[in-house]
């Protein structure tokens, strides 16, 4: 008679007497789950389902509206997220606060699909902690029939009464002030007391002409005709350009802010292995193309670009002209002291009038 008990009987017995077994992590890698924390409306229609089908890993998909929300959530300790997609300056900030795990590139072979131009950014030299997801610009969405000629400069929004009462700026202190710096011919990272005071003065003077500091809905105001000029993320304007032919998008000649959102693994997540698998999946050419064609942002993924049509690749609102991007910059985290000064300036602008 065979006296050895098989695994099932053993587990059954263990469960019956209430013993819990903790299995080695490797056994959970197949199946298991992964907690993905991403921006709202920032993924393909079937991206998550396809990954779940292919790997058997269950994806818990949560959404945030902005980087600040993401940072505030993780600040007091990671509540359990395995993948996050912060923007460039927040990656810098999170690295500064030691909140990210280095990526194990041997588990992400699809990293080879990324455009080499994106592989050595200033915020993460040599790409140790992040891999790019999407990139884009901030620019001006406008109603073609309501403006006079073409919009070419930030001046129309920041220092002119020509379009008084028809302007929406973003409700983001740093970004709005950065474009004021750009208009003054300064770098968007050139924070000095003098520059900040000049930007403050410019905005307080312009405030009566501004209709709204839009809470991530400048595109809706533009579409509904409440404003004719809206400072917005390119992807948001693109979405309404599809609904209304009369909407255009331009990156002003002074240049703008270039942003990049990248996939990172925060410290304190439980499913590091699965997170690598999901990042690898998202960087696959076909998957990347599926996301890009649905959300209409510029993908840094060469393999995905190769699968996209001309309409996407030649759209100036997705891939702006080189003249405009050559004078544009990525935002650098200015340090806590400046964050406070910028916020105080913003409060004064908001309290004015």
């Amino acid at each position, binding site marked *: 008679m065979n006296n050895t008990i098989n695994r099932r009987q053993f587990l059954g017995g263990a469960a019956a007497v209430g013993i819990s077994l903790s299995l080695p992590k490797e056994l959970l890698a197949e199946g298991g789950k992964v907690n993905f924390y991403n921006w709202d409306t920032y993924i393909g229609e079937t991206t998550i389902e396809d990954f779940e089908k292919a790997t058997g890993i269950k994806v818990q998909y949560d959404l945030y509206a902005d980087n600040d929300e993401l940072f505030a959530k993780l600040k007091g300790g990671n509540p359990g997220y395995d993948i996050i997609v912060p923007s460039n300056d927040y990656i810098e900030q999170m690295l500064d606060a030691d909140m990210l795990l280095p990526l194990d590139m041997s588990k992400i072979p699809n990293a080879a699909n990324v455009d080499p131009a994106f592989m050595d950014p200033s915020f993460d030299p040599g790409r140790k902690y992040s891999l790019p997801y999407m990139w884009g610009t901030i620019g001006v969405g406008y109603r073609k029939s309501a403006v006079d000629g073409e919009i070419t400069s930030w001046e129309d929004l920041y220092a002119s009464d020509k379009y008084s009462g028809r302007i929406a700026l973003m409700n983001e202190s740093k970004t709005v002030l950065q474009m004021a710096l750009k208009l003054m011919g300064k770098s968007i990272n050139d924070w000095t007391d003098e520059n900040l005071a000049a930007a403050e003065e410019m905005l307080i003077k312009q405030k009566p002409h501004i209709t709204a500091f839009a809470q991530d809905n400048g595109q809706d105001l533009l579409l509904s005709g409440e404003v004719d000029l809206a400072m917005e993320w390119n992807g948001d304007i693109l979405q309404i350009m599809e609904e209304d032919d009369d909407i255009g998008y331009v990156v002003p000649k002074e240049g703008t802010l270039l942003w990049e959102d990248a996939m990172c693994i925060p410290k304190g997540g439980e499913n590091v292995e699965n997170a690598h698998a999901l990042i690898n999946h998202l960087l696959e050419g076909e998957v990347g193309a599926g996301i890009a064609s649905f959300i209409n942002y510029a993908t840094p993924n060469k393999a995905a670009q190769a699968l996209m049509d001309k309409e996407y690749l030649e759209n100036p609102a997705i891939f702006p002209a080189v003249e405009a991007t050559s004078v544009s910059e990525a935002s650098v985290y200015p340090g806590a002291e400046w964050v406070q000064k910028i916020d105080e300036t913003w*409060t004064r602008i908001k309290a004015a009038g």
Partner: protein
Amino acid sequence: MYSFGENVSLVDIETTWTFDNYARIFKPEIMTLLWRTVWISLVATVVCLIVGFPVALVIATASPAAKAWLLLLIMLPFWTNLLIRTYSLLNILGTRGRLNELLGWLWLRCNDFLSFIGAGELGLLGEKFVPIKFLGTPSGVVLGIIYVSLPFAILPLYSSLERMDRSYLEASMDLGAGQMQTFFRILVPLAMPGILTAFIITFIPALGQFLIPDLLGRGQVDMVANVIQRQFKGANDWPFGSALSLMLLYVTFILLALRAFGDAAKARRESIR
């Protein structure tokens, strides 16, 4: 605790028992915003009371069957999310929104009427209809706050009117007081506890509104809560944010203490009598 602390790194806050965060409240821009917060909340609250009182009176005097339905109508908006209600107001209050559509239509009708009686040439109502700008102005924020807090004002008013002994009103009328006199000298004083509760229950949440200034105020009429919200997010300055929110909490406590104090004084007066 945070309110007495300082940011020592991006993620750590050390409690150093500093009063700097409280001192920063007295900067002029914060005082401007505090003042704006108080007057906007005050206007909204007073309108809520004025509008809510007759509604509460109607419900309190209705037949029991009608009462249930009317109360249900008052509660109904609570079943919809605040965000959705606010977005629907965006649709109503916009320069091309429903309310302005209605006003524009009324303007046309009035103008037709004026031409009909032969006064059309005078242009009494202006050359053409100018939509009223609610959004991005204090009026939009006030309307938004009234909209969300009106039910909170009506319910305590209703409960105090409901419990009231109607014989006082009859006595007043019998003894020769007019309708107005009865209303102001008997009904309102008797309903005073309800009015005070309604005042506090609308005023205090109104002080903390940030969604309505963001959406209906279009970021143009920020209130104190917007600054607080930014401290916990973009500005990453939890100590200052805590100090500001405690400030609002103190205001709340003072109001509640005044209320309790008033009640106690009244009880004492009555016991002496």
